[in-house]
């Protein structure tokens, strides 16, 4: 079993009276794809927003232990620092590229922090010093490799917003990978893709896990993606974990079937729900 990368302990997120995430604990491991599924409104995206610092969790701990050492308490870090220092990258449910900038520029912005250091906060860059030019050439080369991997080398100089939908999805993943993450959070990467593009996405994600040796968190509704490529699946419903295990285990879990398809009337309710409703 791989070493744990992200440990979520008793995570709770409340918005006023609404409990979006309720005492959630889970572990994502290095070099594994952890799928997170659940019906609409189960709190999957809220969980991502807590991991990537867009929300500050109400309670609980998020501990990231990268393979190169150190521990990062993500619940106490500001959004951009999580991406910068703890190296957690993410994509968005509704694609968030920089639509007016070219494909290549999108990938270079992702390498901002390294380039910024190389340009000595713009001083070396302003005078075109050799050290900066070298760093920039490396960044362009890295972008080129990623573009080749996602098949967008020809479109490098087009505005990102003009790409077809599937290409934008792949570009967003490549952009996130250009930040050199240790954990990549993908929020519904297969949404809006056709079956062929979905298959290509599977290959891309498996390839990323294979070559980059990073952990992936994957929210997905498309079961053909989740069940095929996930090493481990966590099922959320009403902000709580109702099942976890291998795709095969989860597929046959009665709680999961109930959450997705609804329960028979004569079937007993799950223990958690029963307690909430005050039934014996």
């Amino acid at each position, binding site marked *: 079993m791989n070493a744990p990368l992200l440990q979520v302990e008793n995570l709770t997120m409340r918005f006023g009276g609404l409990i979006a995430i309720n005492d959630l604990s889970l572990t994502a491991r290095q070099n594994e794809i952890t799928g997170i599924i659940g019906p609409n409104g189960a709190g999957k995206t809220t969980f991502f927003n807590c991991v*990537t610092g867009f929300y500050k969790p109400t309670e609980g701990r998020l501990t990231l232990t990268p393979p190169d050492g150190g521990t990062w308490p993500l619940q106490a870090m500001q959004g951009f620092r999580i991406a910068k220092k703890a190296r957690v990258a993410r994509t968005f449910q509704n694609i*968030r590229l920089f639509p007016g900038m*070219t494909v290549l*520029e999108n990938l270079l*912005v*992702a390498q901002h922090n390294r380039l910024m250091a190389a340009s000595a906060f*713009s001083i070396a*860059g*302003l005078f075109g010093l050799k050290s900066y030019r070298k760093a920039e050439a490396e960044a362009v080369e890295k972008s080129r490799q990623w573009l080749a991997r996602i098949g967008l080398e020809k479109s490098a100089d*087009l505005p990102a917003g003009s790409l077809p939908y599937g290409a934008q999805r792949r570009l967003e993943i490549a952009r996130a990978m250009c930040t050199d993450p240790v954990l990549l959070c993908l929020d519904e990467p297969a949404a809006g893709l056709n079956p062929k593009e979905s298959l290509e996405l599977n290959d891309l994600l498996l390839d990323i896990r294979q070559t980059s040796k990073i952990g992936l968190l994957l929210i997905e509704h498309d079961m053909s993606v989740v069940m095929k490529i996930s090493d481990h699946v966590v099922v959320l419903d009403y902000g709580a974990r109702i099942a976890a295990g291998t795709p095969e285990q989860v597929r046959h879990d009665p709680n999961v079937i109930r959450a997705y398809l609804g329960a028979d009337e004569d079937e007993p309710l799950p223990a958690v729900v029963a307690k909430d409703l005050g039934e014996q």
Partner: protein
Amino acid sequence: MAAFKDAILAGLVAALLALPMLGFHLGDSAQGLQLETHLELVPLAAAIVFAGRLALNLAAPWLAKWKDRAPAGKPKLETGVSRRPLYIGIAMAAAALILPLTPWGDRNILDKATLVLIYVMLGWGLNIVVGLAGLLVLGYAAFYAVGAYAFAILSQMGFSFWQCLPISGAVAALFGLLVGFPVLRLRGDYLAIVTLGFGEIIRVILLNWASFTGGPNGISSIPRPSFFGMPMTASSPGHTTFHEFFDIPFSPVQRIVLLYYVILLLALVTNLVSLRIRRLPVGRAWEALREDEIACRSLGINPTSTKLSAFALGTAFAGFAGCFFATRQGFISPESFSFIESAVILAIVVLGGMGSQTGVVLAAILLVGLPEWFRDLAQYRMIAFGGAMVLIMLWRPKGLLAGRTPTIRLNKGDAA
């Protein structure tokens, strides 16, 4: 028939508008102010508008056909990416450089060109903040004022223009940071309102802190720039003046030419720095912030410091321009930094096409240069200003030169 009706309506509106604007006129006479009537102008204006509107309506089908046919010759993919050759910019800079040497370079033209160049520089400075970083700032003239007053006040302590130039920029940038730090978490309209308020605060302070800023009387006898320490005056005790050193007869035009070259230099530096910085990581981060701040945060870019850097750089250029303005006028007062200044500078940036350096130059010539040329028209000269704005918005709703040039290309040979 519809065309005729529309034209009659336009003529009626023109008559209504012309009645107070053209029909009555306050004139000076021996008995004091007297109301003169020029009612004959009203039907004339209505007739002109009627005829023009009718002609436009009748030509409409033909115009539409012509418009449809135009793009057929050259199939163009609307990608929003432009590739404008560099030599246009270089040619414009070269033309500006040799202007004083050409026969047209008389005092009058140079004065107007200097004024236009001040606005070009301010436009380029604001372009960093509005065009690149996407921060809508409505109080840019405040930083212009800070630069001008920094120099004016320091000059009273005996500092020269060249000593004060960097200080003015630094002081304006400092103000930019001070204002920017609390307000940059705001976006769009909210930021615009807060910066508008800040612009007014600065003006009101300048107006009321009379012991420090001279209040409404302003500060006068601000020193002129010297040429490497040589004053540009007819004579100066204890100094070799410019004309004595070069052994040429003194002429006041020499000072005008020097001022022209100083602002040209400052403007070109502004341009070069913003062109260069756009291609640096920080410049790309500015544009990325303009496009999507949330995505930027997810990539580990610090939004606050990135915005602040754009704000500080933009306001520093306003400070330099203010310093130059003070030395050119020799006298400054809060009136020179009213809201309309901020509005004109913003209009130059927006009408020029956000983020376009050449567009700013064209818009500055149109909005600042044209009204100067139409000064003979007295009170109607602002019509040139308004007319230029309306025409640009009709024909180029995205600005004169819309579309951005990529900061870097992967496939250099390909025609993208």
